[in-house]
C-alpha cells in the first residue's frame, strides 16, 4: 500500500510517527485502566426487563403435564452461557410460584445440560452454537428464548428484539407448538408472530 511511500514524501514523518505512537500508547493505557477496573454486578435496564419477561413467560405459557415430574416440581428457568442477569433474575423469582410450581433459576455452560429446564434463555455467547443447541432441544417442551438476531429464523421460539429502546417479542408459534407448549394470547397479542424461517 502507499502508506510507506506517502510517509517517505511527508517531511513531518517523524513527528507524525511520534504523535501516532503517543496516541496509541495513551489508548493502551486507557484500555489497561478499564480492564483493571472492578465490574459492578447490576445488569442494564434492558436485561432487567428481559428478566421480567422470563418471569412472565412462566405465567403465560402452559407446559404439558409430563414436563413436570410431580405436581409440586419446580419450574426451572435456565440461563445458558455468559449470564447477563447477575443476581437480578434470582431475586426476581425468589419465593414466586406458578400454581404449585416454585420458580428456580439454573445456569448452564453447555447446551446438553439444559434439557431439564422449562424455559431456557440462550445468551449471546452461544450464538455460534445455536444451531446445535436448538437441534438438541427441538420438539421438547422447553421454551427457548434468546436475543440472538438469527434466533427465530433458526427455529428458536421467542426472540427479544430491542427496537427504539423498547424490548419487543418475536414469537415462533410453530416451534412452540412442536414442543407442545401453549402460549397465552396475553403474550401472542402484543408479540409479533413470525412464520418459520423468518427473523
Amino acid at each position: 500500500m502507499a502508506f510507506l511511500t506517502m510517509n517517505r514524501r511527508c517531511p513531518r514523518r517523524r513527528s507524525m510517527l511520534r504523535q501516532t505512537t503517543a496516541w496509541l500508547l495513551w489508548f493502551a493505557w486507557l484500555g489497561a485502566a478499564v480492564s483493571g477496573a472492578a465490574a459492578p454486578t447490576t445488569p442494564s435496564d434492558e436485561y432487567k426487563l428481559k428478566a421480567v419477561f422470563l418471569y412472565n413467560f412462566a405465567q403465560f405459557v402452559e407446559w404439558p403435564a409430563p414436563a413436570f415430574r410431580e405436581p409440586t416440581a419446580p419450574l426451572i428457568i435456565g440461563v445458558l452461557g455468559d449470564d447477563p442477569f447477575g443476581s437480578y433474575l434470582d431475586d426476581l423469582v425468589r419465593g414466586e410460584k406458578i400454581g404449585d410450581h416454585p420458580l428456580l433459576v439454573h445456569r448452564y455452560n453447555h447446551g446438553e445440560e439444559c434439557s431439564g429446564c422449562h424455559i431456557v434463555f440462550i445468551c449471546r455467547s452461544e450464538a455460534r452454537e445455536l444451531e446445535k443447541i436448538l437441534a438438541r432441544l427441538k420438539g421438547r417442551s422447553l421454551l427457548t428464548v434468546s436475543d440472538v438476531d438469527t434466533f427465530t429464523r433458526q427455529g428458536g421460539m421467542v426472540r427479544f428484539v430491542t427496537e427504539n429502546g423498547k424490548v419487543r417479542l418475536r414469537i415462533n408459534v410453530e416451534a412452540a407448538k412442536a414442543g407442545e407448549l401453549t402460549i397465552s394470547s396475553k403474550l401472542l397479542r402484543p408479540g409479533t408472530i413470525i412464520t418459520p424461517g423468518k427473523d
Partner: protein
Amino acid sequence: MLAFALSAGSLSGQTPQSIPSPDILKKMSVDELLDIEVTSVSKRPEKLSEAASAIQVITGDDIRRAGATSLPEALRLASNLEVAQIDSRQWAISARGFNNVFADKMLVLVDGRTVYTPLYAGVYWDVQNLMMADLDRIEVISGPGATQWGSNAVNGVINVTTKSAKDTQGGLLVAGAGAELRNSEEMRYGGKLAPDLYYRVYAKQFDHGDSVRPNGRISNDAWRAGQIGFRMDYDAVAGDLLTLQGDVYDGEIGQAGPDNIGVNGGNLLGRWSRRLAENSDVKIQVYYDRTHRLIPGSFTQNVHTYDFDFQHRLPLGSAHDFLWGLGCRFVRDDIGNTPANAFLPPSVGHKWFNAFVQDEFALSKDRLHLTFGTKVEHNDYTGFEVEPSARLAWRPDQKQTVWGAISRAVRTPSRIDRDLFSPATPPYRVAGGENVVSEKLLAYEAGYRVQMEPQLALSLATFVNTYGDLRSLEPLNPPQSFPVQANSGLRGRSNGAELTAEWQATSRWRLRAGWTELRVHSEPEPGSADRATRDSIAHDPNHQVTVRSLLDLSAHWECDASLRYVARIISQSLPGYAEADLRLGWRPTPAWEISLLGQNLLHAQHPEFNTPGTRRELQRTIYGKVSWRF
C-alpha cells in the same frame, strides 16, 4: 423506518428514568412491559437533543431488503435526503438543499468518525466501502445538529453505526455479480477471545463498471477497491463498553485521461464508555484517520486526522438531564500540487477545540421537554464560533409529539475556501479567499409525529432556513469574469416539508412512503459582485416522492420494491425522473440467502445530476447475490 424514528424520538425525548423496581415490574401487564423504555449504554441514542428533530433511522434489515450494495444506495432509504448518483462512483448527497458534488453542509460519521474531507468539507463516497452486512443502523437527521455535533452539521447529520462484534459471531461469505457492480466479494469472521471480549475481521473487494454518457458510450469511470478491517468489543454486562476498530483500504478509479485515480487510507478508533449510574455515563473516543488520493493532473492529497472526544451525562435533580463534552481535532495535510491548481501553502496543520453543554429540562414530566444548549468551537481560520439551539417537545399523549426548534449552525471554512489557487503561480485566475468566514445558518423547525394505529405512523417536519455568508466567487475586475477570489458574499433561504408514512398493511406486508418539498433561493449580499456562484451552489429538486413495499411472500421468499420520483433540477436543466428497483430474496435455510436485484428498471439509462455537458447516466442493471453463514 418511520415507526423507528417515531420511537427513537420519543426515546430520546424523555429524560431516561431508571426502570421501575422488580416488584412493580412483576405486576405489570405484558403490554405495559413492552412499553418500557430501556436505555442500555450501547443502544442509548447519542443525542438527546435530537428528540425534537426530523430523524429517520435505516436499520440493517432495511438495507438488506433494499439490496443496497453501497452506503449511498442505502441512504436512498431516507426520504429526507437528496441522493443523486453522479457517475459510477460519485454521489451528491445532502438534506434540505444546497446539494452538490462537494455537498459541504452535511456531517457524516461512521462509528463516530467524521468522514468528510477537511479539504473541502464534502465526503468522498467512493472510499466509504463498508461491509454492508455489518451495518447496524444509519440515523439520518435533516436539520442542524451543530449544538452537539459541531460545525458542518448545518443541513443534516448522517450517523452510520456498525454492529458490535458480539452480534457478528461466526462466518459470513457474500458474493455477487451484476451488470454495474460487476463483482463483489465480502468475507467476515467473528469469534470470542475471552469472556465478554468479541472480535470480527472482514475483507471486501469489488469491481464496478462504467457509467455511460448521454449518447450511450461508456465514460471510462470503472473502478475497483478493496478494504479489510476489524472490530473488537469488550461488552461487560455491567455497563463498560470498550471498542477498538480499524480499516485499511486501497482502490483504483478510472477517469478521463491516461492515468487512474489512486486512493488508499486507513483508520483506527478506540471508544470507551462506562455507565456510572442509571442515567449517567461517560464516553471517551479517540481516533486516527489517514486518507491518500492521487488525482493525476490535479492533486495528490494526504490527510492525517487525530481526534479526541469526551462526553459526560448526568442528572441534575429529577427534572434535568445534563450533557457536556469536550473535544479536539488535529488535521495535518500534505498536498501535491500541479501547475494548474494549488492549495497554498501545500502543507498545513490545523487544530479545532470544542466544548458543549446541553440540558434537557422536563417542564412537565413526560409531556413537555425543553432541550437547550450550545457548542463553542475554536478553529484556526475564524476563531470562536457559537452554535446554540433550543428545542421544545410536547407530548399531549403517548401517541403524538409536537416539536419545534430554533438553532444556529456554522460551516467553518475548509482548505478549498481559503487556500485554493489556479494556476499555481501568479497571476491567478482563481485566488484563495483570505476573507472567507464561516457560513451561518439560522434554522426554524416544527414537526408533528403520530402513531395513528399500531399499524400506521406519520411524521411531518417543516423548516425555514436563512443562510448568511455563503461562499461566493467575487470578480476582482468586474465586469470581467476573471480573475475571481473566494469570499463570503452570498446569502440564501430555504423552506420545505418532509412527510413520511409507514403502514403495516398485513403481517406480511409493509409500505413506506416519503414526500419531500423543498425551495432553495440564494442571492448576492449587498456589496457582492458575484453573479455566477449563486446558480451553482444549490442543485435541488423541488419535489421528491418515494414509495417502498416490503412483502413476505412465504417463510422463505421476500419481494421488495421501491419507486422514486425526483423532480427536475432547474439549475442544471436536468429533467425529473422516476425509477424503480425490485428485489426477490430466497432463504432456503437460515444459513443461505440468494437474492436478485433489479435497479433503475424503468429506463435503459437516466441521469441524476450535473449539467448537460458533464452529465453521466446510469443504466438499468441486474445484480445477483449469494450469502452463506457458517
